[in-house]
């Protein structure tokens, strides 16, 4: 791609900022973010990832975007998964194995109900939202 200049960098930033802020706010797309640092992967994040991918495919849910992210810092609750969707509060799940991933799809994504006992608190506020 063309090399950025200060101007084009600022334009790019504005576009992507809007895109990121609109996740789970604007349309019906469901955003699932899985913590996949070394720690998360070692704790089984790939199993959760595969379950989300598989379930989304078999249930023909074409409005799901699954992303990876780094370590969320909750070592005691790995693997961690964040769910953002319009009709539900942003939620952070911990200790998500394949079974819980399946439950998150059926209960949270499709049933509008949180999955009890696997919800964790965000470790800190976001400095870009204050």
């Amino acid at each position, binding site marked *: 791609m063309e090399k950025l200049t*200060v101007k084009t960098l600022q334009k790019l930033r504005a576009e*992507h900022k809007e895109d990121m802020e609109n996740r789970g706010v604007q349309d019906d797309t469901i955003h699932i973010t899985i913590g996949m640092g070394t720690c998360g992967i070692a704790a089984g994040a790939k199993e959760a990832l595969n379950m989300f991918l598989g379930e989304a495919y078999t249930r023909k849910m074409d409005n799901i975007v699954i992303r990876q992210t780094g370590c969320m810092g909750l070592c*005691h609750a790995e693997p961690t998964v964040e769910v953002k969707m319009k009709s539900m509060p942003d939620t952070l799940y911990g200790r998500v194995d394949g079974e819980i991933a399946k439950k998150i799809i059926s209960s949270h994504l499709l049933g509008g109900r949180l999955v009890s006992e696997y919800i964790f608190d965000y470790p800190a506020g976001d400095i870009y939202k204050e």
Partner: protein
Amino acid sequence: MNIKHYCLVCGVSGCKSSKADAVYHQLLSAGDSSGLSGEVQIVKTGCFGLCGQGPILKILPDETLYVGVKPEDAEEIVKEHLVKGKPVERLMYKTPKETKPGQSYRKQLRLVLRNCGVIDPENIDEYIARRGYTGLEKALSQLKSEDIIEELKISGLRGRGGAGFPTGLKWQFTAEAEASQKYIVCNADEGDPGAYMDRAVLEGDPHSIIEAMTIAAKAVTASHGIIYIRAEYPLAISRLEIALRQAREYGLLGENILGSGLHFDIELRLGAGAFVCGEETALLASTEGKRGMPTPKPPFPAVKGLFGKPTVINNVETLANIPLILDRGGAWFKSIGTEKSPGTKVFALTGKIENSGLVEVAMGTTLREIVYDIGGGIRDGKKFKAVQTGGPSGGVITTDFLDTPIDFDSLTAIGSMMGSGGMIVMDESDCIVDVTQFYMEFCVDESCGKCAPCRIGTRRMQQILNRISKGTGTLDDIEKLKSIGLATQKASLCGLGQTAANPVLSTLKYFEKEYLEHIEQRKCRAGKCKDLVSYTIDAEKCIGCTVCARKCPVHCITGERKTAHTIDQSKCIKCGACLEACKFDAVKIA
């Protein structure tokens, strides 16, 4: 019917100390009797921290936080908050009057980890979206080299690798040195046992390091950067490679960056995993292809570093702060943390703690807040003994110092060290001699052998510690440990040796009694030093349930059902499985 409110009750499954379970059930029945069953969902959550004020109840989507909720408060919360929409003021969490900037009830402030767990580290656009490369943009288009260094000096940022040297000053030395070539090096050779914050940053936010190094390049006029990273971090390496490729594609590395005329690129060097290579002069030697051994300072790398050229060398966490400082200004950064140690510190909180994890707090936060409010206290309700900070270079912090605000200077003053930020929590079942011996063995293994005080001193200290843990130590050994320790501290060439005695000296200062017990009474109160421990079964208490015999991995417990069992001492490996298994308190440790 759509759910209107979600009630999150904390720690129900894990927390036995609070009455969260009763609150949960009261909420359920209050919700039902108010006819809200289809509109409210009451759920149990993992630990929310803030355990001293539990049980905690959080209502979503409005994010109201209630603390100290009693079962009898449930009805009021349902009727007032959920039905009428009027939050119950008296139970709401009140922010303490003297809050530090950006601090919520969560006590954490994430600057270094601002993007970790938020962005996709393999997607440069997400980094850019969250003000990524804004600091670089400013540095290249608005600031002169000396302005950048001035901003860093205002910020008061100190090196997060352990020593705490002012970063702005470091950069200034390199900027002022005359040379045809200068280098920017990132020290990503994180080797302290129990520390992994650098890995988290490299894996979760690699562009922040690239941006910071490019800012440094402009500040000191360098064209070449190197990230020295240990080969044991394959995921971090692959994400860095992706990030470097993307930055080059976007023109954020390479020729004429952002049209400013700056040329700068970064390459990776993989370390083979020697602890001493985290020491900057050894790291530079290793980068040059030589054996990783330290050299005396001065000359400091800032003046004469890689290939004899002036070199800025910063640790990962230090660098991760820099884009933010440029973006928001040095004065903003200076307002966070303590006077002499501005900003935050990431700690890897591990050991006998409920909520192990990476925590980032403003400097000046107390250990009590970290261990109890964030960490959720000691695991399994055991008693707090000490926290080991700074790994093999640090020392212990005991109960007496739980309320000491943590920063570089306060930790040094109590004989410990910030180090890279490992924080290992110990409870009453950890033996001080055993833990100290572990760190000393680590130092013996990792000492490069170049200088005698470190090579011989660590070995001798390890031998003495081993003796003590075997019950063959003498009272002289305590004095010997102290004198060898002080000599190693004073005479060693580099930081490894200079700090290797810290665990010994610090534990002798605060836990001398435990050392003396090992020597005089041949007793290890924690039951960790196997040569000093024996397990026996109290025949009066043993009911012959056979559980211990079945749990014993070496089958050395015998006895008929319903008759007292005995342990064959010659076969016992002292694993303690029988002690844990016995429900009748019949297994004794002596």
